């Protein structure tokens, strides 16, 4: 049985992840000045192809190897590819792009691990034989970068600004109790508009970056949370 070696993992949390993803996207012709923030999410499947990591769809990846997707070293073609389960890809259209983004993120930041993955069994091995805490770090780092690849902060901020402006009345009518409540409400609406899952969008809304996007926007639009409003006072901004 193959022993997957895990190298030292540098600390990559939300803000460094944003910088890594942003630099990667810019290097590959995305996020140019005037980029259309209404064209979110970034089509990571096309992006992956363009940077030389094609997405391939396989039957039974999930049922046989308990794996929705994996980065995979195709030695014959001398490149890392992204394999995704066909059922997940076709039937979970709002979460499959995140799976692809996560695997692309692994290729970007964990290539020394994923060049060792040469069969789906190797990926299963990585899941089962890696210490839980290490595995969590690897997954969390990939998720942070993936979120920034799909919904880059720089564009998502503009998107949210326009969205809040347009939907201010419904936000106020919803009377959010706190930041999390507001993020849930917005995620539900936006997820339906852009074809991603609520969880992915909420995560993007609540990203802990140098700039607190949600805090910044609620201040700008004068949105108050119920918990912060004195009894009998009006909640609207």
């Amino acid at each position, binding site marked *: 049985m193959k022993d997957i070696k895990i190298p030292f993992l540098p600390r990559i949390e939300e803000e460094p992840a944003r910088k890594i993803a942003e630099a990667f996207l810019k290097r590959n012709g995305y996020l140019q000045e005037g980029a259309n923030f209404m064209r979110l999410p970034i*089509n990571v*499947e*096309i992006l992956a*192809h*363009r940077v030389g990591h*094609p*997405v*391939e*769809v*396989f*039957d039974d990846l999930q049922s046989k190897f308990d794996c929705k997707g994996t980065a995979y070293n195709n030695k014959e073609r001398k490149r890392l590819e992204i394999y995704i389960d*066909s059922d997940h*890809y*076709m039937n979970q*259209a709002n979460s*499959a792009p995140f799976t692809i983004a996560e695997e692309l993120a692994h290729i970007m930041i964990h290539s020394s691990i994923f060049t060792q993955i040469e069969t789906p069994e190797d990926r299963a091995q990585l899941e089962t034989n890696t210490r839980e805490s290490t595995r969590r770090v690897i997954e969390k780092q990939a998720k942070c970068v993936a979120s920034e690849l799909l919904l880059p902060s720089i564009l998502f901020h503009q998107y949210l600004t326009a969205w809040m402006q347009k939907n201010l009345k419904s936000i106020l009518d919803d009377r959010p109790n706190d930041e999390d409540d507001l993020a849930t409400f917005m995620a539900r609406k936006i997820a339906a508009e852009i074809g991603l899952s609520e969880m992915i969008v909420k995560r993007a809304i609540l990203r802990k970056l140098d700039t607190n996007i949600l805090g910044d926007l609620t201040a700008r639009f004068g949105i108050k949370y119920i918990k912060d409003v004195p009894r009998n006072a009006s909640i609207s901004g």
Partner: protein
Amino acid sequence: MGYGEMLRSKRIEREMTLRDLSSRTDIDVAYISRVERETINPPQDEELLEAINGALNLPGQQSQEMKDQAAVDNRRFPADVARNMAKTAGFPLFLRTVSNKNLTPEKLKELSDFINERY
């Protein structure tokens, strides 16, 4: 470049995902993926080839090139050529003559341009 690689390149040019192509053609997504990475031969069925070309919105000449490449990868004559062969007695002789010359693709193009101009 084989059919699979041509298909992938045209699909990506159009920013079309595998799901988009599968949905527009009603062809199984894992099958398209296998064709694109050339682990199986391209479809031989003309209707499938037409459906793919239609979904990609390929102009006439590119559409023909795709069908020709599919035939070449399947080691067959394109359907329209095969139909004409059955009708024209001198066709096998002509093809054998050309085939024995081992012409490069450039020379073959030159020859077809000449025939187009002359006949």
